[in-house]
């Protein structure tokens, strides 16, 4: 017993010291930090959590302190101590029933208020229909004048104008996913057959990381996304660019390469490579799953109309550069476990052609 007492204090001291050091020195700038709110919704959520968190810390200090006092003060000094036998104390018990109840009631009031606050949706806000897929996010931007019509579709990386509330409606085509951009707003499920509504807002321009937060199968960890908050001008420019049709391959202007003769042997220029790539896209099976406006309308994989306008791909786990694309096209499931996109056994020529083509889709 005595030993354990010594042990207790000799261990606790360094432990506490160590923890303080760790807390002071090692916390890095986490890029999905819920405590660093960058928008009104996340701030509202933190304004509830943080005070209650400190109240909880206070209660813990009280409980832990009382236990500590007991251990120090009421430690058996001899084997034969005869403590007073207290069977209970009605008043004390009533007190520590009622006091927590009052405390909880006082946090219940703002909680209920905030629940309803979070269910208020701005009128005439930009509305983005976000659809969860295994394992990437599809974003359908609705027309400003009609939220029932899709203006354009993108994936993985969504843009929003800064300081403006944007409505995100959520659904899924397969399993349940969970849309979460911690610095902007708390998470909400994307459930097949249901349509949930979430408001996000960013205070400052920048890139905000997010990811799927509900286990959705093999590559759940690889279902990330980015929200890019633009200035209004940047955002308008981005929308215009996205609304534009896909860049057409230059084949029609080139007399010696037509869409029906893909095997070009002349020194391939970027343009002709891209044109061949467009054919590969159609013939190798890509078009069955991926949509490119004017070329194909597959809905299984991400819409690639403006693929190169995005900085990341494959659920935001890879930078959108040639090297990563090459690895990806060679064998998607090897890059992203369980990937729905199969290995199409493309030749390296075909891959280069596809990369050249994708490079035009800006």
């Amino acid at each position, binding site marked *: 017993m005595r030993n354990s007492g010594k042990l207790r204090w000799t261990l606790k001291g360094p432990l506490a010291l160590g923890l303080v050091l760790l807390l002071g020195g090692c916390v890095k700038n986490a*890029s999905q930090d819920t405590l660093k709110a960058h928008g009104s919704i996340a701030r509202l959520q933190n304004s509830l959590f943080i005070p209650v968190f400190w109240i909880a810390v206070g209660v813990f200090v009280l409980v832990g302190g009382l236990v500590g006092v007991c251990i120090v003060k009421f430690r058996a000094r001899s084997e034969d101590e005869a*403590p007073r036998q207290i069977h209970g104390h009605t008043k004390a018990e009533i007190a520590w029933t009622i006091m927590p109840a009052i405390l*909880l009631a006082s946090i219940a009031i703002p*909680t209920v208020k905030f629940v309803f*606050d979070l269910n208020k949706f701005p009128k005439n806000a930009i509305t983005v229909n976000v659809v969860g897929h295994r394992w990437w996010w599809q974003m359908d931007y609705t027309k400003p004048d009609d939220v029932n019509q899709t203006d354009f579709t993108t994936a993985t990386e969504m843009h929003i104008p800064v300081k403006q509330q944007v409505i995100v409606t959520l659904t899924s085509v397969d*399993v349940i996913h969970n849309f979460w951009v911690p610095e902007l707003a708390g998470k909400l499920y994307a459930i097949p057959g249901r349509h949930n509504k979430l408001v996000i807002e960013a205070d400052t321009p920048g890139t905000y990381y997010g990811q799927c*937060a509900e286990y959705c199968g093999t590559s*759940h960890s690889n279902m990330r996304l980015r929200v890019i908050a633009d200035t209004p001008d940047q955002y308008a420019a981005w929308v215009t660019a996205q609304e534009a049709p896909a860049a057409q391959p230059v084949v029609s202007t080139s007399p010696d390469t037509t869409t029906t003769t893909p095997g070009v042997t002349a020194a391939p220029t970027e343009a002709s490579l891209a044109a061949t790539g467009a054919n590969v896209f159609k013939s190798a099976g890509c078009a069955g799953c991926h949509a490119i406006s004017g070329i194909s309308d597959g809905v299984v994989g991400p819409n690639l109309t403006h693929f190169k306008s995005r900085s990341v791909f494959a659920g935001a786990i890879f930078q959108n550069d040639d090297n990563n694309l090459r690895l990806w096209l060679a064998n998607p499931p090897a890059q992203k476990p369980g990937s729905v996109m199969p290995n199409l056994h493309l030749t390296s020529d075909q891959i280069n052609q596809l990369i050249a083509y994708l490079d035009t889709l800006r």
Partner: protein
Amino acid sequence: MAIVLEPPPSTTAPDADKHAGTPAGTPFLRRPHSSEGFWSWVTTVDHKRLGIMYTATGFAFFLLGGIEALLIRLQLARPNGHILSANQYNQVFTMHGTTMVFLVIMPVSVGFANYLVPLQIGARDVAFPRLNAFSYWLFLFGGIFLYSSFLFGGAPNGGWFGYAPNTSIPGYLPGRGSDFWVFGLLLLGIASTAGAVNIVVTTLNMRAPGMTLLKMPIFSWMSLIAQFLTVFAMPVITVALFLVMFDRNFGANFFNPAAGGDPVLWQNLFWLFGHPEVYILILPAMGMVSEVLPVFARKPLFGYPVMVFSGIAIGFMGWGVWIHHMFAVGLGPVAVSAFSVSTMFIAVPTGVKIFNWIGTLWGGSLRLTTPMLFAIGFIVMFTIGGLSGVTHSLSPSDRQQTDTYYVVAHFHYVLFGGSMFGIFGAIYYWFPKAFGRMLNEKLGKIHFWLTFIGFNLTFGPMHILGLQGMPRRIYTYDKSLHLGFWNMVSTVGAFIIMVSLLVCIYNIFVVTPRSPRVSADPWDARTLEWSIPSPPPEYNFAEIPTVHSLDDYWHRKYTEDDEGRLVRLPNYEAVRASSDTNVAAPGQHIHMPSPSYFPIVCSFGLVVAAYGMIMGHTNGANYLVSVVGILITIGGLYAWGLEPSAEPPEEHDGEHGGENAPPQPAHLGASGGTMALDAPSTAALPPGETHEGGTES
């Protein structure tokens, strides 16, 4: 299937006409009668042996679940870990959760209830000893069944919560793991329901004379509440699992969005089970702690009635909070508000318990033994878990914390810092009762401190990780998230826990067997189980005690003076010494239920049926295997019903038939007579037949 295949309780009664049997022998299996050796353990119906088997099996699964935990921590120690593949990781975290909930904390709690409730309430056995054995074997087989999935194409990988449609539509998850998960949990559900009915009936019906409900030891009380919750919660998940099974095996549409099915129904059913389940996991540990604290504080439990009623309140309120697992589902504001508030207020009875425990410590004379250290550790760690639980009740902000490591931290503080600390304390506390030897205290304290430090290092940082945006159930995370440091700390902590467990195992298996034997009452304890030798004789009590007060045994040793101070009674030493010799007098026969093969046969049939269902998934003809399994179980049930619970003494008069013979076909009934000849010397009449039984034989 889960429910209907349970043996009707009435089938467990003795056979009235056993005397009529001819020496032709039993139709299936000869009645076992050895009291030692391997087969005696296989066929035992002794609640103490079964309690030890439950706990030991649960401990073995705890080590498996612990290995899985270490794999998880190794994988996550650094960003972009490569120890496991994505699919392997998903299997491991699913099995870790499923194991720890269904194969560790639940059965270990049931194991303790099995061992202790009859001892604490002054009974000779549980109400249905063979049903008890059936529950145990089905639990063991169910666990083995689940783990056998690793050999047959991959373990379950849909998470312990198995959200539909991920689990319900074949093809979303690789492998056949979800089938194993569904049928494994169905088997375990039957096992726990049968076990729970047994403990409920035992506690309500078999208390010693004088032991009113409010004189019943607190552990028995908390077990009773937990088992009530099991009785009512298990059918809900049984239905949910059946719906998934019909979706997977027979193309039903319950969770198929393409046919209009709603995946949220699964969540409602699962958490309607799942939240009471949380209290099934924590209430027994609360009871254990409430037994340990008074003994080592040398004070009665502060506010015993309040402790009982807060437990009951938790049991009821536990049914009204399940939506707090679903705050991110997108339910309407009214539902979310209501469940936020109900979740906050379930903290009230929990808080009352914490303050009452402190009240128990306050003014006491604290002996900081290993059980006491774990009990105090429980109070502090559980408080952290409870308080982070309150932050989860803030539904608007919980949208940030839910599905992150903050939740992982929260429920590990509740289930490890709470339930497991309580269970460890209970192991140290009751080990001398069960095995007659004290676990080594020095190693025990090392175990505690390593666990305490390792636990906090492992799970403390998870609060930070969650708040810094680390979602749950991810097999990898990118360096750009800057989560590496705290993950590494957490992994180091996990290995400290591993070392602490090795110390514990070394203590139990190497050091303690060589330590001297202890008396019946080594801790100077309070409840009836300490009034009989360590380990207790098969019949527990030579004479069923008459109870006069709460902590009856304590009041035989102590009284209070006018100021309420503790005073030893003059016969203090005599009472303690007599506990060691509290055995049946020579010549006194106490008839105990006889061992039986049929519980294990019945549970085996159900496992065969479960394998058949999995094989049927690939080829419909394989469902015949299930039919065979069901027939084995039904046959076992009939044989079980025909076999008397306890072998009669040879000259037993058959006209005095038992009251509750089973619905059994007469053609199988010619077995009793031989079995009577085989009856072990002490076996004949049921527990509770003391002197009368003796005169009869």
